[in-house]
């Protein structure tokens, strides 16, 4: 089994000795050449001689009792090697989950959402597997649906999960509520009396999909020791492993995971998808099993961004000072918990936005419903809140007759501000400044679509569809700013591990960096090599493939990887450097007193004093020895939020971005063209400026998508997904995406490695409300939901 060839196994990435680039430089990706030649192996590219194809049979109804499953006809098909249901699960443990183990590997007794996995097939061709899956007979008895807060908490409501015994059930007011986090600070009732102006709003945030392009996929290869080798695309290998091994009934060391090429993630790969299923089929059949979802299945294969209802009240004095804020955020977690508890923590603790408000009354909850499960997506709870509080700021500015940017600047938080959780913001918080920067940027010229020859429809709302040559087109400008926490919060032990080795190869000092960090496109591999160059004074760095043979790196999410795994690489490099210097002292210390007395660094392949004097070559120091360190690294600890008051130092760092959106709206047809989406963001320190821009522009565009087009539509009568395809779930094309000028600030956070700040998520927050604000500015409409569709702009909803 192990001897036959597996194609697509990741290999080391080496940037050779001609590559320059320590931190702060726009070093090019080490996987760039592989990716432009088609040679980079993604999880769906894995191939093994004699492999089988796995197929998942999913529920066609949202909430039903499974009366019977008959797999006999499917098993009898030629070319079918296995058909598995709940009864075939090998271990005591039959559930998994990121925070609560509430998700069945295969449905047991009932299904709780449309598209829940019920049975698995392995066959010699995907079509054979599909035909066999179609022959599995399942009888469902449909159950009443829970689809929103009213139906979830109504007297006598059906419970999505009966007999809950998780840690959250003790404090939630209803078993259909996963988690509840109130935050009370000051006295909102008393403070409200000081308000000259009060604005209230009820906002709706639609269900967004990560829509990563590389579908869920991977290959499980059974091993001779009874274990399994698993090649998958994920955001966190070790978290997967902790969930996979118990349901396979295997010790963790017998489940060897390697990260395959990841075609984007954005939160959608935090949860398990096909990992366990492929392993089960491989272990049952004794053959390698590949599973690749198509786009239709992908919409059921991962969690989505929580849709939300948000109720907000803000008060202000006549001169614009915020007096108080009350809000209630209801997140729909769907049928399984996934990351709902943490999303609730973020939504509540960041619900005031980057503003100073002393008196607040906040509540956020996540529901269990029979809608599709929701969990992590870029921005993670902070996105929904930002959409609402920024709409409130515009509403308040309008009522006060103030400029909306001035109102925000007047109330902007800064270093030293207390969050509603009582935590001090202890690093730069240039909220007013990033707003100033986007505002002071010159506006793009009007009517750029017009020339002496006529109208260029490509630059008009409707684009190639030729709906307007300028008729009905009105420009609007809008602003927004947001705050996102970086890293895992609420007392989670957030650490990463890096193994760094230094040795001489072919007469040149070479560093090898081995972590379990999931490279999902963000460029972590580039940055790790840059850190190694900076810390170890080498040019040639090899990045070892990510796997579970090294300690956990934590997830590639929460804007945390450069901070935490970057920090771990830096730390391990420093430890390696100490050992190398120790080696040098032993060998050469007697020749020069500076070995003992000076601050030494490694630079250009040499040991150098802080005065710049060269003490020796690394090649001579190392000779044929290799120095290796594997070490864990942690950021400052955080603490949980109090369950009644929400008080606590729950976060470690914040990230701030502001946007100005300029849109042109065809007000008659309700079509929107975003002309420019300017961003200013504080990144602390840009380790790789080119990658920083890529993150900000990409995040901005995902925010644009959910402003004007992206929404998974769930039929409220059936809880079934109506648009699981790229035909009807639309993401922005290059013709929908404007120029995105970016203004990068680098105000160091003294607590973070190199002063850096996590950057990936903040631009996704403020982009959406900025676009909405611009559309409101163009149309004069209130627009309390996102995405906004043509019917909302034309009174034809």
């Amino acid at each position: 089994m192990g001897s036959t060839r597996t194609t697509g196994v990741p290999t080391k990435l080496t940037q050779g000795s001609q590559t320059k680039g320590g931190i702060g430089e726009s070093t090019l990706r080490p996987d760039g050449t592989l990716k432009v030649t088609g040679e980079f192996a993604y999880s769906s590219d894995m191939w093994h001689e004699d492999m089988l194809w796995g197929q998942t049979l999913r529920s066609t109804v949202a909430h039903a009792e499974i009366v019977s499953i008959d797999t006999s006809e499917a098993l009898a098909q030629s070319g079918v090697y296995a058909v598995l249901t709940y009864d075939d699960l090998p271990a005591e443990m039959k559930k998994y989950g990121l925070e609560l183990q509430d998700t069945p590997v295969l449905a047991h007794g009932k299904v709780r959402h449309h598209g829940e996995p019920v049975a698995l097939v392995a066959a010699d061709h995907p079509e054979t597997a599909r035909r066999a899956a179609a022959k599995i007979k399942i009888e469902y008895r449909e159950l009443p649906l829970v689809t929103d807060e009213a139906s979830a908490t109504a007297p006598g409501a059906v419970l999505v999960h009966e007999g809950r015994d998780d840690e959250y059930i003790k404090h939630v007011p209803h078993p259909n509520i996963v988690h509840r986090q109130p935050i009370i600070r000051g006295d909102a009732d008393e403070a409200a009396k000081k308000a000259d102006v009060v604005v209230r709003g009820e906002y709706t945030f639609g269900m967004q999909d990560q829509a990563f392009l590389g579908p869920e996929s991977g290959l499980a290869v059974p091993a001779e020791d009874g274990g399994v080798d698993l090649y998958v695309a994920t955001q966190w290998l070790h978290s997967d492993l902790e969930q996979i091994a118990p349901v396979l009934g295997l010790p963790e060391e017998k489940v060897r995971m390697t990260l395959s090429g990841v075609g984007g993630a954005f939160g959608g790969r935090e949860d398990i998808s096909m990992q366990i299923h492929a392993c089960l089929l491989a272990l049952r059949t004794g053959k390698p099993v590949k599973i690749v979802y198509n786009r239709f299945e992908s919409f059921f294969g991962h969690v989505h961004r929580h849709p939300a209802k948000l109720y907000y009240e803000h008060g202000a004095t006549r001169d614009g000072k915020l007096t108080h804020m009350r809000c209630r955020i209801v997140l729909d977690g769907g049928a399984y918990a996934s990351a709902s508890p943490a999303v609730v923590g973020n939504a509540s603790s960041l619900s005031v936005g980057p503003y100073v408000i002393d008196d607040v009354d906040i509540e956020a909850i996540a529901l269990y419903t029979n809608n599709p499960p929701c969990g992590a997506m870029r921005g993670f709870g902070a996105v929904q809140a930002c959409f609402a509080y920024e709409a409130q700021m515009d509403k308040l500015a309008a009522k006060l007759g103030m400029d909306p940017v001035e109102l925000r600047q007047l109330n902007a938080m800064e270093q030293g501000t207390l969050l509603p959780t009582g935590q001090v913001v202890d690093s730069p918080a240039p909220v007013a400044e990033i707003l100033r920067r986007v505002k002071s940027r010159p506006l793009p010229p009007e009517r750029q679509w017009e020339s002496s020859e006529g109208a260029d429809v490509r630059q008009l709302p409707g684009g190639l569809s030729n709906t307007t040559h300028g008729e009905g087109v009105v420009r609007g400008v809008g602003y927004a700013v947001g705050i996102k926490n970086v890293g895992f919060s609420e007392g989670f032990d957030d650490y990463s591990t890096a193994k760094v080795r230094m040795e001489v190869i072919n007469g040149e000092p070479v560093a090898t960096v081995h972590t379990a960090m999931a490279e999902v496109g963000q460029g972590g591999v580039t940055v790790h090599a840059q850190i190694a160059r900076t810390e170890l004074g080498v040019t040639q760095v090899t990045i070892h493939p990510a796997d579970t043979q090294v300690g956990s790196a934590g997830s590639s999410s929460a804007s945390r990887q450069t901070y935490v795994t970057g920090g771990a690489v830096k730390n391990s490099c420093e430890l390696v450097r100490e050992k190398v210097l120790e080696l040098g002292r032993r060998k050469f210390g007697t020749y020069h007193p500076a070995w003992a007395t000076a601050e030494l660094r490694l630079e250009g392949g040499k040991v150098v004093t802080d005065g710049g004097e060269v003490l020796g070559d690394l090649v001579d120091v190392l000779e044929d020895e290799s120095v290796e360190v594997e070490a864990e690294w942690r950021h400052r600890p955080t603490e949980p939020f109090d369950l009644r008051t929400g008080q606590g130092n729950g976060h470690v760092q914040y990230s701030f971005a502001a946007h100005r959106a300029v849109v042109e709206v065809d007000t008659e047809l309700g079509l929107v063209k975003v002309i420019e989406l300017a961003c200013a963001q504080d990144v602390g320190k840009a380790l790789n400026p080119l990658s920083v821009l890529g993150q900000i522009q990409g995040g901005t565009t995902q925010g644009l998508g959910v402003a004007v087009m992206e929404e998974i539509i769930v039929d409220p009568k059936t809880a079934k997904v109506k648009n699981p395809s790229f035909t009807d779930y639309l993401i922005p094309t290059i013709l929908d995406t404007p120029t995105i000028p970016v203004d990068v600030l680098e105000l160091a956070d003294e607590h973070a490695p190199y002063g850096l700040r996590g950057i990936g998520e903040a631009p996704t927050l403020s982009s959406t409300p900025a676009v909405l604000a611009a559309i409101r500015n163009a149309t004069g409409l209130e627009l309390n939901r996102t995405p906004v569709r043509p019917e909302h702009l034309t009174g034809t909803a």
Partner: protein
Amino acid sequence: MRVNFTVNGRQQEADDVWEGESLLYVLRERMGLPGSKNACEQGECGSCTVRLDGVPVCACLVAAGQVEGREVVTVEGLADFAKQRAEHGGCASGACGTPLQEAQRWRADPAKGAMDSGTGEVGGGNPDATLSPIQQAFIDAGAVQCGFCTPGLLIAADEMLEHNPQPTDADIREALSGNLCRCTGYEKILDAVRLAAARQDRQGLQEGAV
């Protein structure tokens, strides 16, 4: 059924092809050419874009049986394809696009071994690797993040520059409007195409001056 066609200049044969298989499946799963990507399989993302008799198409929408006797160029063959085109004077003849006869004359360098994917140590921006101008520009401009959309974009962008060597931004946007990217926000992709066009232009000027 059996299907014979030419991929990146090599005659290929696939046996026992199920009639419902797409060209994309045959390339990826039967010919060891997974460079063309399987992002949507419904013609809505462009990740599987290949040239079929010179014309960019979605490989997921071509039935395997439809390619019998035809010529396919995938991202794995793009560098050689571009090199051959440059050696034959590019598009100077005005016969832009790749005529069938020319596509049929073209052959990939067999020494490159297109079947051997994912092995070997390769670096970004490695000057030793033979890349087409558009491939190099994608690396240099930071147009690659997760890279799943990249192969399709490269084929589409390369073909556009073939017949429109000095595109406006609106031209680039229109030509690439069938290729979704979820990571970059497209800004760096625009940069890459502009960069490739500029380098092509500069090279053209230099050659013209000689």
